[in-house]
């Protein structure tokens, strides 16, 4: 007779026991706690101005808040152009991911294929970017950006978001390249392929899922960053995360429903992307240290 542990590790039929009921209730309790705030945001975003301060669950829903948030221009309510911020976020993050892939893939391949002098130090240096407090570089960057004239520009944001996206891309892809059997490329070399051609036609296509996952996860991380756009942009290149917080201050008046609508719009792209790459998330979130 298999033990509970062995059974739990084996897919198949489960018996209902008092213990399993308690376990089900516990997991249900977590999901109530975990999902309630999101459900509440959806409800709040669907309420009109008169209903927004009520904490009841019955009301007549309206989509007007999303329209208001997306059509607001400078002088209205919160002085936030949210539609513009959404578009800027997309461009900033796409740019950062693109550059990260172009410089990150060769570096990840080098680090995954060869152990060379300083390779481990280089990798650790990148990992330390992941953990470094952002403010350490933000103040000098603010000065440098003003000198170079790239303060509040998308170019400036793309460059600084590298700090977020490149370590992620390099670390994740390194683990994919390490797992790839070197014999595959060696076979191609024996067939007369050049090293570059072997990489491009053999190695690269095989890690495509890894590249897609790393790119999307890097996009999410860049999207979610707050401190860099907060300090290094003003309005032209400002992002969703900065724009959302402006609704809390809303010109002395409270716009709970608009705040909720903005929060949802800002949270939706990463949520959708995350659900599409769920299979690869573990490896990505742990920088390739945990392979699932």
């Amino acid at each position, binding site marked *: 007779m298999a033990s509970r542990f*062995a059974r*739990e590790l084996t897919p198949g039929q489960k018996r209902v026991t008092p213990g399993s009921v308690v376990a089900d209730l516990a997991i249900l309790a977590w999901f109530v706690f975990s999902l309630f705030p*999101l459900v509440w945001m959806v409800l709040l975003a669907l309420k009109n101005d008169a209903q927004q301060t009520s904490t009841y669950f019955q009301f007549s829903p309206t989509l007007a808040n999303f329209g208001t948030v997306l059509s607001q221009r400078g002088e209205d309510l919160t002085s936030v152009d949210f539609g513009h911020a959404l578009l800027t976020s997309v461009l900033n993050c796409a740019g950062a991911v693109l*550059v990260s892939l172009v410089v990150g893939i060769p570096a990840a391949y080098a680090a995954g294929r060869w152990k060379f002098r300083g390779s481990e130090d*280089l990798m650790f240096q990148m990992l330390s970017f992941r953990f*470094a407090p952002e*403010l*350490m570089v933000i103040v000098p960057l603010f000065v440098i950006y003003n000198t170079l004239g790239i303060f509040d520009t998308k170019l400036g944001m793309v460059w600084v978001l590298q700090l977020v996206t490149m370590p992620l891309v390099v670390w994740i892809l390194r683990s994919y390249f390490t797992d790839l059997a070197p014999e595959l490329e060696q076979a191609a070399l024996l067939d007369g392929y050049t090293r570059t051609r072997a990489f491009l036609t053999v190695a690269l296509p095989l890690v495509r899922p890894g590249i897609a996952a790393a790119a999307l996860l890097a996009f999410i991380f860049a999207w979610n960053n*707050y401190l860099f756009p907060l300090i290094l942009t003003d309005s032209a290149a400002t992002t969703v995360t900065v724009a959302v917080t402006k609704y809390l201050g809303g010109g002395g008046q409270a716009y*709970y429903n608009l705040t909720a609508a903005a929060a949802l719009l800002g949270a939706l792209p990463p949520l959708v992307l995350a659900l599409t790459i769920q299979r690869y998330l573990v490896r990505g979130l742990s920088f390739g240290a945990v392979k699932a």
Partner: protein
Amino acid sequence: MRPYLLSVPAVLLIIGILYAFFYGVYYTVLNYAATNPSPSFVGIDNYRSVLGDALFWRSAGTTLLYAVAATGLETVLGVAIALLLNRSTLIGKTFERLLILPLMIAPVIAGVIWKLMFNPQFGVLNHVLGLGSTFDWLSKDRALASTILVDVWIYTPFVAILVLAGIRSLPREPFEASDVDGASWFYMFRRLMLPMMWPYILVAVIFRFMDCLKVFDAVYVLTAGGPGVTTTTLQIGAFEDSITNLNYSRGSTYMFLLWIIVFITARYLVSVLGKAQRRAAGAGA
């Protein structure tokens, strides 16, 4: 030669950032502030001032408390959730995909969401929990606990999915063998599962602890460090010095000291992880 060449573009980008970093370190020996645009060299004066400041040590204490409490709670809850989801019952299967949702939202947006819910008059929490309109989640005594609660809401899924991935990669044979020997659930959990799971748990703990040391986004939105200085963490303290008060040198000194703490902790934890992974690999072979 080739591996060096392939890394050149990445290294160049890193150098760009390192330039800013060393610039920041340079600020720590100047008296650079908005009120003093032509700074001069002051040696270790900033370090003396920051290290002699009670607020710095208070912020360091707050940060450590936050990091230990949040990481501890998230680890215990995350492991529990992973064990529960691993039972793969209908409920678990239904919700597993939704587990990561809070984790994927920007922490600052999560802060906004909880700020709306925490509101004593119009927030939904006091209504649902029957606490009335006088219970203030972000009051002096409760603010730190409330920010930790939000951290737990965001990041427990991170620990849970890493540990769940670990559990699913475990070999079944040791469990079946010890089952034949009549071992109890608790014995198997303690003697088999935990040791084999240790590298996975350690990765989660390292990532959470390091990120907590530099926590900013959600806490800043929820409390901006207040009321008073009750939730002023090191990065929030540095933000106030360099951005709010425009004292760049002092803020940079704050950050550089935090960076040193983070760097040493990271080096140490990564070496511990390396050993744990080698031991686990050896045990598995």
